[in-house]
């Protein structure tokens, strides 16, 4: 087995271990909360007998261990149970809310990467101080406040961008292929719908992207500054390569490890930020679903979402690990 393959196999095994542990922790924590979701489900006039029967049906009257194994056994088969609030399969709910979050998170990730790498490169040579300070200042503002300010300026003040949802009222969603509106609209040649979806994505994605972009920019900048003092850079310069080529061809890849680690960590923050940002922008994604599920103590939904978000975080970090191993062969050893 080559180093890279062994490395990948280790990461995948770790992924399953982490998911198992995550599920167990979420499950135990939930069961410790003294709530009665069944009363909330059946209403204030429900008799104690019907509440007891429903609790039995939902396995809520068994031990935590029994409930956990029951949940896990079904989860392995893709059955995450029935949402106590929406009365639909949690898998169906997640399936309908996840694409909006994926689209938002991907857009935010691309924005964060472009902004982060761009600002990191520009400021690596001591330039772009104002840009860096501006980004830092924006990154220091809490996301809910940043979102509100962006809404005030670009939606309420300038009327440039919409403030709520994925599409304007009256604009029909494009036929579903990927469930990502921007992609589906393009695939069907609906440019008007595509532009409307892009406009709806910009403000929430920017709100999400500012903090990670600042973190990536700062890490890349400091990493590049160290690299640029290395002997081989001096050699490259001695060969009369332009500063741009030195930076992009020689320094960037060797400085990528720290920003990649940072990017992986930022994914977690980005997923956490989704909850707040979707709330402010009324963006119908998994964040909104999560908030609603937590508030109603919809335990199957909370467990399902935790599993999906946790799995996303672990998978993305495993991919980052693999990218780092690719960038720096010493890590494969």
């Amino acid at each position, binding site marked *: 087995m080559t180093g890279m393959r062994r490395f990948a196999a280790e990461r995948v095994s770790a992924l399953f271990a982490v998911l198992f542990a995550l599920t167990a922790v979420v499950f135990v924590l939930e069961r410790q*909360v*003294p*709530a*009665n*979701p069944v*009363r*909330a*489900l*059946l*209403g*204030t*006039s*429900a*008799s*104690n007998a*019907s509440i007891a029967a429903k609790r039995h049906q939902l396995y809520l009257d068994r031990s935590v261990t029994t409930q956990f194994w029951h949940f896990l056994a079904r989860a392995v088969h893709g059955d995450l149970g029935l949402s106590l*609030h*929406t*009365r*639909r399969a949690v898998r169906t*709910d997640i399936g*309908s*809310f996840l694409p*909006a979050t994926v689209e938002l998170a991907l857009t935010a990730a691309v924005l964060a990467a472009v902004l982060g790498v761009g600002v990191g490169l520009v400021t690596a040579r001591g330039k772009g101080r104002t840009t860096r300070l501006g980004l830092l200042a924006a990154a220091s503002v*809490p996301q*809910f*406040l940043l979102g*509100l*300010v962006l*809404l*005030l300026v670009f*939606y*309420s*003040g300038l*009327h440039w961008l919409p*403030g*709520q*949802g*994925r599409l304007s*009222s*009256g604009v029909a*969603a494009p036929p579903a292929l990927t469930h990502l509106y921007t992609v589906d609209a393009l695939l069907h040649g609906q440019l008007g719908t595509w532009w409307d979806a892009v406009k709806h994505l910009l403000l929430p994605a920017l709100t999400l992207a500012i903090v990670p972009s600042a973190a990536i920019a700062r890490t890349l900048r400091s990493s590049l500054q160290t690299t640029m003092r290395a002997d081989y850079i001096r050699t490259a310069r001695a060969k009369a390569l332009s500063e741009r080529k030195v930076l992009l061809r020689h320094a960037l890849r060797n400085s990528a490890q720290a920003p990649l680690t940072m990017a992986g960590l930022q994914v977690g923050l980005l997923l956490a930020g989704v909850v*707040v940002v979707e*709330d*402010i*922008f*009324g963006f*119908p*994604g998994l964040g*909104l*679903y999560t*908030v*609603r599920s937590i*508030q*109603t*103590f919809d335990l199957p939904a909370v467990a399902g979402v935790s599993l999906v978000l946790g799995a996303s975080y672990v998978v993305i970090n495993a991919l980052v690990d693999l990218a780092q191993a690719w960038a720096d062969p010493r890590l494969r050893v």
Partner: protein
Amino acid sequence: MSKPGRVTTRRLASAACAAALGFTAVACSSSGSSPAATTSGAPTSSAAPVAAGSSGTLHLAFLSDMSTPDPDVFYDIEGNTVILSAYEGLVAYKPGSTTIEPDLATSYTESKDGLTYTFKLRHGVKFHDGTPFNSAAVKASFQRRLDVNNAPSYMLAPVKTMLTPDPYTFVVKLKQVVTPFLDYLASSWGPKMLSPTALKKHGGKDFGQTYLNTHDIGTGPYTLTAFVRGDHYTLTRFAGYWGTPPAYQTIDIKITPDMNSQILALKSGDQDAILHSFPTPELASVQGDSDLKVDNFDSYLTALLYMNVSKAPLSDLALRKEIAEAIDVPDLVKQVYGAYGSVAQSMYPKGILDPSLAPVSYPPKAVKVNGVKLSFGYTADDSGLQQRLAELIQQKLEAAGFKVSVREVQNAQTYGYPTDVKHAPDLLLETNTPDAAHPDTWGRIVWGTGGGLNFFNYSNPKVDALMDKGRANTDKAASDQDYAKAGELMAADYPILFLASSQNVMVWRSTVTGVTFRPEEPWTVPLATLAGTG
């Protein structure tokens, strides 16, 4: 504020958000010269002239997704506007009153023994699938509610038999006298009429619950043409509606969970109304905006302070009385609600029972205790009223010598208290509303033994017996007396303090007219009477 399965506790970093909101108000309010129109006090009982046949779209927003548009499962508050526009029942409350009037029935009679109800049905009513409404449809609709057996099914539990002697007569016989039965039918959560043809077609294995999670099969003025969970719902005018055609062609309801975002959308003209939970400090900025108007209506929303009678220290009646005296309810209500609420006059919500029959008051008195520790939970709402009420109660109790620790709790948590009352807080602040305009739908669940909103397991067999007597008493005056006595007996035990009757404050674009309200349907507006002038 709470309703089973519904959550209003949804706040986001409240302190800083409030700061942002202040900025919002300054930045967004336009400087109109004329003050906003304010409908104060008594609820509106007559609609403004309706521009029948006009078209256009009304844009509304919900703070949270409704659980389901299935009327036999739905038991929340947010979403009632959708249910009541798509579905109708046999009877309904007259706007702004507790008077029950025919809806899809044209008349009804009650037998002397109170066990048989006969409904004469309206001719020419069509379901949204085009099939006719008749007595067989009523029977199928009632039966479906019993089959689904979800939260609102309790309203039909007393039914013994259902008869359909002819296509436009429906007879229902009860197992025993249940005086609130007609109120159940008039309740916004009461049985609604569903097309039996559609039920058969889409019934599947779950009595059509999957289908009705995204569709409607009612007779109402609007039909649900889009239900995109978490995003938006669209209601479209039903061309075959039997009544006066509604003015708006389309109602677009967006899910906008952030109140600040809703305020921005309202002021920008992208949203036509905020139906509830408008932050009261922001109302001043609205009143200076000629594009907006405030409509506030009396509602059954009542702020309650529960005291944990099942554990020390509040198992002590004397201490509970001292709390009632120490918090100075009149001052509390004046400071927190201002013009948007009043001191509760009775333990029953304003309008359900004559307050002179069962008055309640808590005269303030100087109290001094020696450092009694109290834990205090409250369920918050977006208007900020609950939080301010909790903070002020804390201040007043601490001034009297109590040591009070306050924390926000979620509604679903409060439902767990009865099973673990020893670990529940000593005090709980909630705002609740009854299912219908009948004292039984309040007393039985709030202070009756085992009641769903009786969080700290208060129990008094004499109180329960009086409510049972009232429920079985076909003489309304005598029945009211029974409920009044039950309320008074309970109030003397101080398990709950009845603080305030809260108004439902709505903020509308000035161009919308015809806003009506029923006090037993908080956060809800009948859409059929609305019209746009702009």
